């Protein structure tokens, strides 16, 4: 078998040197009571050409964004990744390397992490970043846990307009450690209801979490949210970004009063990939640096005085603090982080801004076209590349009609927001053409 560099002769030599008669004797320490008596119920080996065909066949049994313009966002945004990203990821020095615990052998990985941290801190208007978390959902949960560690209060307030799956992950993480999660409603403009937030605040609130843009694509006024928070026993404001591209167009949350910025950076060069692997991130101010979960890379020098990079502040982590760790995270999303770093380097400051403006333009164009057909946005607040409209049709009907017209339709909001019956979430990125937008407007306008 081609992955076992072991001929029969090799096996004989290995057995002899190990002082063992046969392979079975190697497992003498396993009691016979628990030894398997039959072969594994896994089908026989498949040769490579046939294996490839099997997977191709599985892949074409899906109808992806390759076949149809995609108007789905809902936490995963269809962007183009330059070919150079994946070609560099295929360098086996990157993908077959381990976590950089021996820094002398891993300066490639470590320097890339340092560059990623710098970029994310810069984009979010913060001082420091970690080396990645699993995804936007777990990043939201980690932000709440971090806020609790700093503030000590036991109440977490989260915007109802934050991604429903992120809120569910948050609850799953917080359930057993004595923290409560309460929702802040959104107003008729689609933004976080500041009056309701004021009513919920007290000295026990350690975190206020809001999406930016939120699940409806609405751009929040983060400064306004921050101004509502009291100075005494001030809760930490965590801004959760699920469409990282928005950071190129919106005022950085770090400059608007956020204490933690976290979320999903997958838009930077990673495929939609049916949900994973994605790229969680978290940034914060210097004063909270030691409370950041996950790996962190720092600059230092070697024995010859040359600049180098190492994992640092590791005493926060599970392999040292064990049950007192800031998180249990170990393996994170290293290669995904590298992809994002390469992507941001290729696209650059100007390119990222242009791309963001294109996204805004496509969405505004779609909005206008829909308006001509009598389909209006649900919310009045400004949006980025995603927005909600009100349809008269039942949820799945809209998607089916879009599919029949050769498009991947939007997201039915009533699934997660029963109060938004007929609500349909549409996303338009640089990958959908004007013609596709026109067609989508026709489809949705034609629904009764």
């Amino acid at each position: 078998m081609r992955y076992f560099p072991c001929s029969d002769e090799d096996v004989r030599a290995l057995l002899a040197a190990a002082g063992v008669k046969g392979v079975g004797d190697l497992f003498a320490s396993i009691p016979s009571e628990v030894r398997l008596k039959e072969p594994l119920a896994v089908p026989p080996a498949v040769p490579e050409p046939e294996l490839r065909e099997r997977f191709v066949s599985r892949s074409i049994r899906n109808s992806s964004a390759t076949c149809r313009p995609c108007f789905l966002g809902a936490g995963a945004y269809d962007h183009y990744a330059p070919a150079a990203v994946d070609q560099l990821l295929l360098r086996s020095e990157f993908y077959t390397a381990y976590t950089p615990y021996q820094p002398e052998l891993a300066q490639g990985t470590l320097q890339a992490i340092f560059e990623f941290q710098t970029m994310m801190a810069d984009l979010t208007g913060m001082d420091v970043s970690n080396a990645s978390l699993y995804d936007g959902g777990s990043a939201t949960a980690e932000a709440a846990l971090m806020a609790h560690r700093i503030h000590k209060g036991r109440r977490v307030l989260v915007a109802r307009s934050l991604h429903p799956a992120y809120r569910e992950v948050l609850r799953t993480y917080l359930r057993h450690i004595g923290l409560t999660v309460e929702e802040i409603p959104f107003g008729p403009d689609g933004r976080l209801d500041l009056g309701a937030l004021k009513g919920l605040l007290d000295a026990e609130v350690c975190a206020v979490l809001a999406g930016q843009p939120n699940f409806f694509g609405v751009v929040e006024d983060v400064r306004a949210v921050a101004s509502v928070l009291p100075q005494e026993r001030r809760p930490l404001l965590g801004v959760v970004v699920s469409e990282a591209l928005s950071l190129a167009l919106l005022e950085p949350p770090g400059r608007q009063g956020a204490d933690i910025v976290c979320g999903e950076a997958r838009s930077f060069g990673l495929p939609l990939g049916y949900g994973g692997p994605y790229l969680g991130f978290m940034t914060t101010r210097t004063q909270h640096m030691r409370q950041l979960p996950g790996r962190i890379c720092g600059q230092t020098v070697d024995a010859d005085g040359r600049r180098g990079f190492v994992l640092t502040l590791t005493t926060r982590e599970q392999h040292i603090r064990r049950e007192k760790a800031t998180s249990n995270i170990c393996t994170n999303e290293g290669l995904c982080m590298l992809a994002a770093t390469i992507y941001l380097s290729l696209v650059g400051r100007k390119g990222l801004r242009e791309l963001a403006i294109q996204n805004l333009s496509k969405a505004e164009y779609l909005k206008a076209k829909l308006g001509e057909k009598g389909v209006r946005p649900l919310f009045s607040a400004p949006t980025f590349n995603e927005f909600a409209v009100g349809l008269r049709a039942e949820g799945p009907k809209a998607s089916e009609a879009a599919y029949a017209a050769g498009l991947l339709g939007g997201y039915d909001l009533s699934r997660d927001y029963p109060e938004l019956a007929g609500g349909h979430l549409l996303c338009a990125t640089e990958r959908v053409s004007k013609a596709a937008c026109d067609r989508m407007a026709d489809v949705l306008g034609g629904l009764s």
Partner: protein
Amino acid sequence: MSNPSDLKYTQTHEWIRVEGNKGTVGITDFAQHELGDIVFVEAPAPGTPLSAGSPMGSVESVKAVSEVNAPLSGTVAEVNPELADHPELLNQDPYGKGWILKMTLSDPGALGGLMDAAAYEKYVAEVSH
């Protein structure tokens, strides 16, 4: 380095120098040696109440982090301002310049429950094997 005889010691390797109802607290030479190069010290703010035997802060090295327990009960009066920029003082001079905080004692009499230098040396010898 030998352990100064004018100090009292805890089983969790803190020392305290008592003058009237004031105490100066730090970690012992044994503790700093076990931890290695100290990189960060976390100490409670002045005014924080301290309870004997309970954690009051932590000391971090590259490979480990250790809680520091209050040797006696009282209130934090002052924190060593040098440690923020020079945590290595704990390694270099754990009984002198590496002091962590000064406190007002609520029960100076409880000092009798702590070990003197000789008892602490004996304790360390046992614990190391």
